[in-house]
């Protein structure tokens, strides 16, 4: 059930009415039922996967919590008769037991993810190696279902389990509440990857109908539909034409495809998240923001702090830090400093941990070499810019341009271009083709396509370009206004006729200019496939 389908609208409408009709204390139970129904309607087999994850996470977290309680009780009871060393030894033993449970939970659930998502990728690599050595035997691919949103809910569940182990959040002893946290339907398919500490309170709370909150949620949903239907799904036609016709569309077309894709991905993903957050908001539930005007970033590092924020912080908190500051890595840090000197030695552990993070980020996005190379491409760019930091400092000491508008604009454009180049791996069939198409931008000079009418042969009419240009302008203006506070808040402060014109106008725009109608093929959200 796509967010942009009529079924989804009917689904949330019925849910919304029931949600505010039933006793408030039962609201979270209704949400759990609705979430499982949503998932069941996608495919009954998916329910088996999410249920298995929920059960294993529940038992592992409860056991970890129980060990923590045992420890507190024991230490309290033996406060006076244990020496400092004995207490330390006891705590280390208990921590080890908790660690084993955490490890079991992690391995089991990552194992499921690995099997359903990466088995065929592994088989295709094995087959490639067999072919390379002239072996005619080939392994058969597995016919295995990839449950919708499995990467998202697995990471969300594992984040909870790690947080319980770290003592950051309390154990959720009610299995049904934990099941809702893992399966909450608006964020099931494309995130955000919420933390238990951020979401649980409003998710399980009782909510009375508040017209203002509901209105704000609806406004957010409408804005999401605008991004998805008016912009993303419209430009998708142009993106597909260029990418699928890689023989024909080279040189400047590749550049154009990159720019189209940058806009499509932004409108698609942020639009989907707007709908997610908006749906939750209509029910009084607060989901953490996943974007902070990422295309205004002045560096790739900053971009990754502002794009898909919940995924970035997940990788930082649960992969980057644990690897970077674990004892073996600190030992390696000392070793590398003694062998390679302070400068290089200090950097090596950070760069190694960062490599692991970007490899994981790449493969998390998809089981293909394209995504792995894309992830490692990001790593290379971030490391190079980190290394160039002293050079930038020298430049800024010599030329005082840091706060000049044009320099900031240059930085923003540079970041967009760099990110767009890297995203080509997301678009083309394989890594060699991506490099080849990238190369044609410099070898095939056909930049006249921008004025010889060729743009009108990509499946987009002059009207489409007009709508896209106006849509892009609106996105930029809204983002600029957002820098000084909530846009919806500002609109809410306007007189009623102004508010009506704005929101009803946007509604009409979505209705009249959304990319649907005869021949329209409802398009999946890009991040659904992860």
């Amino acid at each position: 059930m796509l967010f942009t389908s009529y079924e989804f609208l009917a689904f949330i409408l019925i849910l919304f009415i029931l949600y505010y009709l039933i006793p408030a204390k039962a609201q979270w139970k209704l949400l759990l039922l609705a979430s499982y129904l949503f998932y069941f309607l996608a495919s009954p087999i998916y329910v088996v996967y999410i249920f298995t994850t929920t059960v294993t996470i529940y038992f592992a977290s409860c056991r970890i919590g129980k060990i923590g309680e045992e420890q507190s009780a024991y230490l309290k009871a033996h406060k006076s008769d244990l020496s400092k060393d004995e207490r330390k030894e006891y705590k280390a033993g208990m921590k080890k037991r908790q660690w084993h449970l955490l490890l079991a939970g992690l391995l089991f659930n990552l194992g499921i993810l690995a099997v359903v998502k990466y088995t065929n990728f592994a088989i295709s690599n094995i087959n490639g190696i067999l072919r390379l050595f002239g072996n005619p035997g080939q392994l058969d691919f597995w016919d295995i279902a990839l449950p919708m949103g499995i990467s998202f809910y697995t990471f969300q569940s594992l984040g909870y389990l790690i947080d319980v182990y770290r003592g950051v959040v309390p154990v959720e002893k009610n299995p049904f509440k934990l099941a809702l946290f893992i399966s909450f339907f608006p964020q099931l398919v494309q995130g955000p990857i919420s933390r238990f500490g951020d979401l649980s309170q409003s998710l399980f709370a009782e909510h009375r109908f508040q017209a203002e909150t509901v209105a704000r949620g609806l406004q957010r949903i409408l804005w999401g539909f605008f991004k998805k239907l008016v912009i993303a799904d419209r430009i998708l036609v142009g993106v597909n034409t260029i990418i699928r016709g890689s023989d024909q569309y080279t040189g400047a077309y590749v550049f154009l495809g990159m720019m189209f894709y940058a806009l499509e991905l932004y409108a698609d993903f942020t639009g989907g998240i707007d709908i997610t957050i908006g749906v939750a908001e209509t029910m009084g539930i607060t989901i953490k923001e996943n974007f902070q005007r990422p295309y205004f970033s002045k560096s790739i590092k900053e971009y990754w702090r502002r794009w898909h924020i919940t995924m970035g912080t997940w990788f930082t908190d649960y992969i980057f830090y644990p690897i970077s500051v674990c004892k073996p890595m600190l030992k390696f840090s000392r070793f590398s400093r003694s062998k390679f000197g302070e400068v290089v030695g200090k950097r090596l552990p950070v760069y190694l941990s960062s490599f692991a993070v970007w490899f994981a980020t790449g493969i998390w996005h998809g089981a293909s070499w394209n995504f792995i190379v894309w992830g490692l491409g990001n790593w290379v760019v971030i490391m190079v810019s980190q290394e160039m930091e002293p050079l930038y400092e020298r430049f800024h000491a010599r030329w005082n341009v840091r706060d000049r508008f044009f320099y900031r604009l240059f930085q923003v454009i540079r970041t967009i271009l760099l990110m767009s180049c890297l995203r080509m791996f997301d678009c083309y069939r394989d890594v060699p083709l991506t490099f080849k198409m990238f190369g044609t931008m410099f070898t095939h000079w056909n930049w006249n396509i921008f004025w010889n009418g060729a743009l009108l042969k990509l499946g987009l009419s002059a009207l489409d370009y007009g709508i896209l240009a106006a849509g892009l302008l609106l996105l930029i203006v809204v983002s600029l206004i957002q820098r000084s506070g909530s846009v919806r808040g500002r609109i809410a402060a306007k007189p009623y006729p102004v508010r009506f014109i704005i929101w009803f106008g946007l509604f009409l725009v979505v209705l009249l200019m959304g990319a649907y109608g005869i021949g329209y093929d409802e398009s999946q959200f890009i991040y659904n496939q992860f």
Partner: protein
Amino acid sequence: MEELLEILSSLHPEVDFETCDTLIDDKILDSFDIVSIISEIEDQFDVVISAEKIVPQNFNSAEALYALIQELEDED
């Protein structure tokens, strides 16, 4: 405290670490800085700050970080 301020200042000489209490909230320290700081602290104070201790309230100010170091020293 002096040693800690030296470590921090070597990374960001432009920041007044004695007064700043929004090092994480204002994104003055990034993840690379934090790892460098932890590595230096391990060297100088002989305490290991594990990943679970890397939360904003421990790294938002030099004072909070110093309190964490003392807490870990006491545990040892």
